[in-house]
Structures are given as structure tokens and as C-alpha cells.
């Protein structure tokens, strides 16, 4: 099993004709993701030429694309000015999982989009996230496919390349993954650590979870409390930003220590107090996962 995406995922790519959209559509198709449609307003009726001579129909609107293809998931590679609008359109079209890759969406746009998506019962992943991959089944987003392998570990992270780093180490050590989820580096994200933990808790194949957090906000602290109260699977945690100064945004819009709140120390301590094994370095993650799983 896996969480959020699997072999039943039927994907629409919003912004399929753009540079990033077309590149990553081809990559996802290579991996075996069922890309059933693309949407770019004004390009309806055209087709996307995928790898191996496969083609994907392009529609002007999400509504048509869903009606024609029965898609249940969408991924957004739309520029920041239009990305929140793309989320609204996907939610309105009945999409269940909306993966927003776009970085730089105005935070006030996202406040409205999240409220709207919640009303429509849609899950938003991101924005400003690498997406997710269920090894051997489906990939939605930009995660590099060659670093993952199927197995028993669930991975949740606010970061992109740091996730790849951890996942690559797991894979190299022969430890595979059920699903790797990048939840995004923005201050307002649709799916947080607790949402992913709940899903992994319910997934019988996931035997252990790796959680990679960073400075800013309180999402990790809430996740730690949830782990203590609800989860009977081992969790290994890492927090980036121990050397980050307060008040400065460290790349991600959400990675900022406000006053004295949201420091790495606070989060690591909170992890430790709630029974999460804390990795001091990325290289310690594999050892702690082995230990936790009795490997």
C-alpha cells in the first residue's frame, strides 16, 4: 500500500504546455504515472506528445478534463500569479488531491484557496513542494524517480533536496519507501505533518516514518504531540536550521524564526520528549531507522 497516490491515480497536469509542466509530465509518464489529461487555457484540442509515442489530450478547462477522463488528482505547474486560481478550478471540478508545485504564490491568495478547497473536500499538497511518489506505483510532482525504491518506510518532509538526500541514503542502504511526501516550504500549506502521519498510521505497509522538518511555525511540535497520543509506529525526525539566525527567511517563505518561536532546538527537544528518535545529522537517519525497525 501507500498513501495519497497509487496505481489508481489518474492525473491531470495543469500547465502541461509550459517548460516545467511539459518536462515533468514526460518524467511522470516515464515512471508509469497515469497522466490522463493536461489543461492549458487556449490550448484545448491539442495533444501533448509523451515518451514512447504516447499522447495526452489537452483541455481548456478542468471541468471538461475531469468529465472526459475521470481524473481524481491534479498537479499544478502554473506561474505564481495564476496558481491559486488553478487550485480553485481543480477543487471546483471535483479533484480529490491537488498537488501544487509552484513556488512564490502570494500568501493571501493561498489563504482563500485553502478555505475554498476545504469547503469542496479537496486535499491540497503544497504549494512550493516537490510533490510525492509511491515507489513502483505513481509519481506526482518533481521528485527524482531513480532515488526511490519500494519498501516499508514513509517519508514526510518540508524540503526538496534534503528529502532526496535522506531518501537516497535509505535506498542506498536497501531500505525502501511506501510513499515519500514533500509537504512544502510555504507558511500556509494544505497538508501538514499530522495529515500525513494519520495516513501513514492507517497504511499497513508502512512500518516506520521519517519526518524531516525545519525552522518556523509549530507544525513539527503538533506532529510530535500527535505521535505520542496516536501512533504506534516508530518515527525518526530531523530538523534543519540549527544555525539559522532569528528573523531571517531561509529560502523557504515558511522557514523563519519569529521572535524566539520555531527554532530547531525547540522542535528537536519536542521530538525527543514525545518519543521521536532525533537524527543530529542527515547521515544518522538510516541508522536510527534500522534501530527503530529492529533491522
Amino acid at each position, binding site marked *: 500500500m501507500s498513501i495519497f497516490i497509487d496505481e489508481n491515480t489518474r492525473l491531470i497536469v495543469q500547465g502541461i504546455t509550459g517548460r516545467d509542466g511539459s518536462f*515533468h509530465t514526460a*518524467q511522470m509518464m516515464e515512471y508509469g504515472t497515469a497522466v490522463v489529461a493536461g489543461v492549458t487555457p487556449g490550448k484545448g484540442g491539442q495533444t501533448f506528445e509523451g515518451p514512447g509515442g504516447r499522447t495526452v489530450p489537452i483541455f481548456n478547462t478542468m471541468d471538461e478534463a475531469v468529465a472526459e477522463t475521470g481524473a481524481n488528482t491534479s498537479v499544478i505547474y502554473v506561474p*505564481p*500569479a495564476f496558481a491559486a486560481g488553478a487550485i480553485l478550478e481543480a477543487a471546483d471540478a471535483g479533484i480529490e488531491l491537488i498537488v501544487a508545485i509552484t513556488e*512564490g*504564490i*502570494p*500568501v*493571501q491568495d*493561498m*489563504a*482563500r484557496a*485553502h*478555505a*475554498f478547497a476545504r469547503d469542496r473536500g479537496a486535499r491540497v499538497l503544497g504549494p512550493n513542494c516537490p510533490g510525492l511518489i509511491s515507489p513502483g506505483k505513481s509519481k506526482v510532482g*518533481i*521528485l*527524482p524517480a*531513480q*532515488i526511490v525504491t519500494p519498501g516499508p518506510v514513509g517519508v514526510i*518532509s*518540508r*524540503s*526538496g*533536496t*534534503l*528529502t*532526496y*538526500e535522506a531518501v*537516497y541514503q535509505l535506498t542506498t542502504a536497501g531500505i525502501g519507501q511506501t510513499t515519500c511526501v514533500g509537504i512544502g*516550504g510555504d*507558511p*500556509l500549506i494544505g497538508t501538514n505533518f499530522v495529515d500525513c502521519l494519520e495516513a501513514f498510521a492507517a497504511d499497513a505497509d508502512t512500518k516506520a516514518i521519517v519526518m*524531516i522538518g*525545519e*525552522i518556523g*511555525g*509549530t*507544525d513539527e511540535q503538533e506532529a510530535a504531540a500527535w505521535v505520542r497520543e496516536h501512533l504506534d509506529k516508530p518515527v525518526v525526525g*530531523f530538523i*534543519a*536550521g*540549527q*544555525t*539559522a*539566525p532569528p528573523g*531571517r*527567511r*531561509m*529560502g*523557504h*517563505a*515558511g*522557514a523563519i524564526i519569529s*521572535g524566539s518561536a520555531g527554532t*530547531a532546538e525547540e522542535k528537536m527537544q519536542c521530538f525527543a520528549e514525545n518519543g521521536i528518535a532525533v537524527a*543530529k*545529522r*542527515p*547521515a544518522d537517519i538510516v541508522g536510527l531507522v534500522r534501530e527503530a525497525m529492529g533491522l
Partner: protein
Amino acid sequence: MNIHEYQAKEIFRQAGMPVPPGEVATTPDEAEAIARTYGGTVVVKAQVHSGGRGKAGGVKLASTPEEARAHAEAILGMEIRGLTVNRVLVTPAEDIASEAYVGVLMDRKAQAPTFMVSAEGGVDIEEVAATNPDAIRKLTVDPRYGLLPHQAYWLANALYDDPAIIKQAARVIAQLYDAFRSAGASMAEINPLITTPEGEVKAIDAKVTIDDNELFRHPELEALRDTDAEPWAETRAREAGLSFVKLDGDVGCCVNGAGLAMATMDLVKYYGGDPANFLDIGGSSNPEKVVAALEIITADPNVKVILFNIFGGITRCDDVANGIVEATRRIDIKTPIVIRLTGTNEEEALRILEEAGFSAFTSMDEVVQKAVELAAGA
């Protein structure tokens, strides 16, 4: 993006809020002339992107134009929390009967704008929240409907007893929300919102943070950016599309991805070194970006070694390696460089780097240890 008080006040005035007049001076002469036109007592206020201006001696009352001049002379050029004051705001002093706090910010947990108001104004709201949380009234705005009139009134009602003043304050709170929305702010606050003995409500201080992601919509706000208030390296980094934060150490870091960049800095510290910076070079192998990154890092005289840490996922390691080789050929660098590349096509990347004479690694721990060692020995 932080803007100055005088700029925030202009945004407030455009929203119709009652903000006393004020003008900016960059010299003591100008400050004196402005004070003379207002007559009476004025306040001379340092314009710098930092709190605690009053405590640092950056806000002074002046009862004559000569005194305003003397204060401006003392404040201009002074350092407040490491930032040099280049401008002062000169504004008429107000008679104050009461001081309140009114602020709105984007709350991460509520995923919506959230107001905080308190009758205890003029002090740090975080302090009030810590010592007397009951003195704060909070309200989360539904972003689909905006701040509703009765909500603005309910907030104002927590601040005052006089119905005429509550009504004025409710209008100011509604206008603050409009300003927050239209400027694409992530935070807007009035501290203090005062009442005068005549029963007028006025915003005598203003703080606004603009969401960087909104700037494409607001060229007029981008123009407010005070590039004198930020180090050259940060301006250069922004123009080159890089994320950069200067730190005090000597290991220059160049990493792809924000999370990995933070983890790399942390690992430098773990092995006993000190990172000189945070730098996220992004996901491409574009030599232009590498050149800009190297220029920025080497401009810091503290830097004794340059550490690259690149995870090649979608971007292949050999492309990144070629980018680094090309970039380092274009600019003359004396500082030693150590490089770690891992991921797709890493063997090919290592060959390219070694042929170009670099020490290349695939282990993050090894390369960081090497960098720390070089910095200590230099």
C-alpha cells in the same frame, strides 16, 4: 519585504486612516526646516528596519527646530541593532490620552489573517501576550468574506468605553484590513493607536511587512525597497534569483535547495566550523547562477573556503559539474573550493571535477569535514 514607518504611514493614509503628517529628512538641516514648518513640538524618529528604536535612543521629542536639528544629528548615522540610520521622520508630537495596539498578520495555523488588539498599547505585543494574555482580543478573518463590520466593532469594543471613540476605532480597524489586503501584506500593525484628549483616534506609528510573493503585482511597493538598508550581497543575490543570508563564519556555503542548505550549515557547525552564509542556488545547472553565487561568497573577506553541496535529482550531477567548472573559469578565485555532488550521474560528475583540479566528494559528512579543516588551517 520590510518597509519603513514613513512608507507604511503613506499606505495607511491612502486607506483613509487618520495618520498625522510627517516628512523624511536625511540631514540635520532638513530636519530643522521640517520642524520649523510644523511649529510646536515634533518627534524625530529613526527610520530603520528594526524594533526597539525608542530604547536605542532613536526616537526623540524636540520642542524647537534647533532641538530637532540636534536630535537628527545624533540619530542620523547611529546604529540600531547593526543597522545604520540614514533617514529620520519628523512629525508633530501628539497629546496622548490612551494608547492601544491593533495588528493583523497572516496566521499559519489558522491559515487566515488574524487580528490582535489590546488596550495595552505602546509596548511590545509579544510581551503582553506572554505576561497578560487576557489583555489581547483575537479574531480570525474568513479570507473569503474579509473583515465584517460587526467584527471590526467587536475588536474596537475591547479597547474603549466611549461609543464615539469605539466607532472611530472600528473604522480604523476596517481600514487597516483594507490596507493589509491591498498592499499584499503579511503583517500590518498600529502601535500605538492613540486617543487625544479631544477624543480623536490616530495611528501614530505604523509597521507593514509586504509578502515578497506579492511584489510582482505591486511594482509601486517594490520601489519602496530600501537597498541602502541591506548588504550589497543580498541585493546582488536577489537580482540573480538566489536566496542568500549572511552569517558570521568563514565557511562559504553554496547549496541547491533551502532545506539542504540549512542542513549543510548545521553540519559545518556540527564539525566545529562556522558557516559564512546561507545560499540556495536553486535547481538549475546554469553557470550564470554559479558565477553570481561565487561573486557573492568571495566578496565576504571572512570566507576561507567555499563548500558546494549539490544533490542532483532531476538536474543531473554532470550538468552541475560542468556549470561549476565553467563558472570558476570565468572568475578568478583564490579561495579553496571543495565540492560534493551526489545523485544522478555522480561518477561522471566526479570525473569532470577531478579533471578540472577540484577535490570532489560524494559524502556530505566528508566534504564538510574537509571544508572545516581547510578553514581552520587557512
